[in-house]
């Protein structure tokens, strides 16, 4: 009787390898993005003056870090079938909190950093609890948070930057470089490695994928869905705090109006990186390349001297095109299982 089993399940080794290759959307995405990034490098190095300068390249890394740190957490959030649109104001308010703690409350820098992290994790956890316990859609919960955080920051500071002391050694390290690479870029790389490990090799990470793929099955299997959702948004708070602290260090002040529209770049980077908005599917390596891609586009458009209003139009078009490609690919993949 084993004959039945073998003939039915094994078309041929070669065909199986082929289907597996074409069905691996992550791989398709990574290769595609790498190609796009290489093309951008080739094009920009020949037509945008100063693109290959060391200072521009280091600036690129700094800019990428601002997007990238939050994008790691956002990848997990979107894989779980959720969304967080409050990133920009969260980063800005974090920069304000750390600056206020040092400047007005006279806390030591390290304590100010811890205070900032505690605040940000708390508001993230509140958003997560709204989603997990009270079933407020995460888009609405974080949209409210977006407005509240921006408002708090501006009300508190009257939208005036809060200065940090010039000679703070910790802030100088955070604003500077280690082995010639900007500190925020190190931060981003470390966070990417940690989150990638969490996503692939821990129960929590796999639970995130399971919940995004089939929340009912995950619940039946005994996964604590509410807990995972709360941790997801609390993590977003933590990452916003880290970004906000780096930003304050770089600007030398906390600024309630900073990081305007950052959530747009972060979500775009994740989606360009091949993470499905419908949940269940995505990768950190894809997001990393998405971050690089979107940063390159932004930098390139500036160097090419494109009108800054027009830049928004072009970035928007590129992002929609990338998502269109992503959706088309994943639909083709799942067409066989759809009725």
């Amino acid at each position, binding site marked *: *009787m*084993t004959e*039945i*089993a*073998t003939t*039915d*399940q*094994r078309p041929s080794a070669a065909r199986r390898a082929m*289907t*597996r290759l074409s*069905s691996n959307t992550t791989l398709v995405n990574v290769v595609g993005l790498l190609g796009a990034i290489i093309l951008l490098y080739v094009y920009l190095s020949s037509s945008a003056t100063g693109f290959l300068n060391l200072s521009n390249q280091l600036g690129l890394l700094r800019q990428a870090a601002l997007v990238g740190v939050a994008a790691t957490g956002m990848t997990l959030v979107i894989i779980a079938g959720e969304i967080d649109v409050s990133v920009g104001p969260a980063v800005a308010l974090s920069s304000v909190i750390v600056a206020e703690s040092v400047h007005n409350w006279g806390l030591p820098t390290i304590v100010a950093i811890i205070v900032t992290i505690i605040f940000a994790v708390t508001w993230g956890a509140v958003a997560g609890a709204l989603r997990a316990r009270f079933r407020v859609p995460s888009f609405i919960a974080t949209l409210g948070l977006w407005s509240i955080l921006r408002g708090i920051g501006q009300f508190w500071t009257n939208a005036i930057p809060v200065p940090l002391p010039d000679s703070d050694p910790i802030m100088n390290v955070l604003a500077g470089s280690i082995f010639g690479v900007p500190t925020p870029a190190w931060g981003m790389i470390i966070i990417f490695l940690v989150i990638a*490990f969490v996503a*692939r*090799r*821990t*129960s929590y990470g*796999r*639970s995130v*994928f*399971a919940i*995004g*793929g*089939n929340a*009912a*099955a*995950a619940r*039946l*299997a*005994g*996964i604590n869905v509410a807990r995972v959702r709360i941790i997801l948004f609390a993590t977003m708070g933590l990452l916003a705090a880290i970004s906000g602290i780096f930003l304050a260090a770089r600007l030398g002040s906390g600024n309630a109006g900073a990081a305007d529209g950052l959530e747009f770049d972060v979500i775009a980077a994740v989606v360009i990186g091949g993470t499905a908005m419908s949940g*269940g*599917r995505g990768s950190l390596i894809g997001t990393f390349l998405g971050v690089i891609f979107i940063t390159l586009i932004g930098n390139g458009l500036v160097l090419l001297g494109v009108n800054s209003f027009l830049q928004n139009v072009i970035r928007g078009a590129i992002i929609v095109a990338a998502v269109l490609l992503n959706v088309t690919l994943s639909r083709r993949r*799942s067409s066989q*299982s759809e009725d």
Partner: protein
Amino acid sequence: MVTTTDSAGREIIAQAVSVTRKYPGVTALDSVDFEIHAGEVRALLGQNGAGKSTLIRLLSGVDVPSSGTIRIGGRDLGTEGVRGATERGVATCYQELSLVAELTVAENFFLGRWPKGRFGIDSSAMINKARQTLARLGSDIDPTVEAGNLTLAQQQIVEIARALQDEPKLLILDEPTSALAHAEVALVLETVRRVAATGVAVIYVSHRMDEIRQIAESATIMRNGRVIDTVKVGESDTAAIIRLMLGTDPNAQKVVNPTREFGDVMLEVKNLTVLPKVTDVSFAARAGEIVGIAGLLGSGRSELLRAIAGFDRLDSGTVLVAGIAQSHPTAKLMRKAGIGLTPEDRKREGVLLNLGIDENIVMSDFAAVSRGGILSSSRIRKSAQDLAKRFQIKAHDLSEPIETLSGGNQQKAVIARWIHAGARVLLLDEPTRGVDVEAKGQIYAIMRAVADQGKTVVFVSSEVEELPLACDRVLVLRDGAIQQEFTAPDINLSELLEASMASHV
């Protein structure tokens, strides 16, 4: 632990002792006695509503009996629930698959309790264990493949294997093959056979007699909440089993449908194929005729209707409406040609719960209730009122949301929708599902009234008893093709059931 054995010395795994389960207004189980032994494959047979699912729910701890006891492993289950039943070795695979399509087979195996290694999840241990369990079932499904890339039969096997890794003593399978095409069934049956060979008791719910004959040694037949009999499958012929399922002598309740005169052929289907469920279906239906389609869950009934209505692509074949061929039907084309389909899942695909009853009726043709391209509320009211009256839809106010209506009245509104659109052929997929007896009678009457106006009605039902009541002709769909045809007044219930359950005795 007390080991209970029967006279033959085999261990009794699970037992129901004079169990009764009452729900408000219904006695779902009526002093049922049931037992199953190690290594036994027991088929559970019965019509819809016979009490099979309730018995399963009690054995797996999802529900508790109103009176009587459930014993698992010799001890009273009491109110220990699913957890208690699982600890004593009961594993249940329900009809709906519960795999996460985006995770690998191995990850699905250990969903929520992934093994920990030195560096996070121990994938190699996970993969090896999954491979071993699958191999024990003679399956070479690759544990590193994403579950969504497997066929339905393979997914079903993964579910069974996953249930087996806790080494259960009792495995309950609720219609595991109903979603599968014929060729895939053998794979699942072979798996069940291997499971039983390791000493696990298996309760197998299915309507397909040929499957039951292949794997079960005995079958328990239920009817109206009671266990009627437990028979040796090898010693009973299908007709005898069907008599037990139906109860009364089926020929006693024969309905005399007058022989009618019909008009021209309105709907003709030639060699229609929609893989994998529908392989070769041909039939014709005339104006004024009600044609019933009998077939088990998974026999391809809904797929056939969906294809005729243009919702699924035909792999081959032709559909003719009033003699005009449609070789590549689309939903738009078929609607124009006069075909209306009321779907099986009324709540999800039939009605728009939040919209008014009137809007639910006229939505199939907004142009008919518009003036100069703008919806006219007086026209909507008039059309909806006319149809509601004709179809006896009981509602105080037709502008109320349709969710305020009973299931039967909702169904009438969905049928009315297609009369509003001027459909000539009505395809009704399980219109009487979840509907009370009175509304059922009214739906039959509506079908007849519509047919008498020269329309064609195709009526799909899993409740075989109602087909002779309503139809002029009944086609039996099995394994994706029409196997037999009965014409009124010679529609014999037991022959009908036998033909759809397909026993190759």
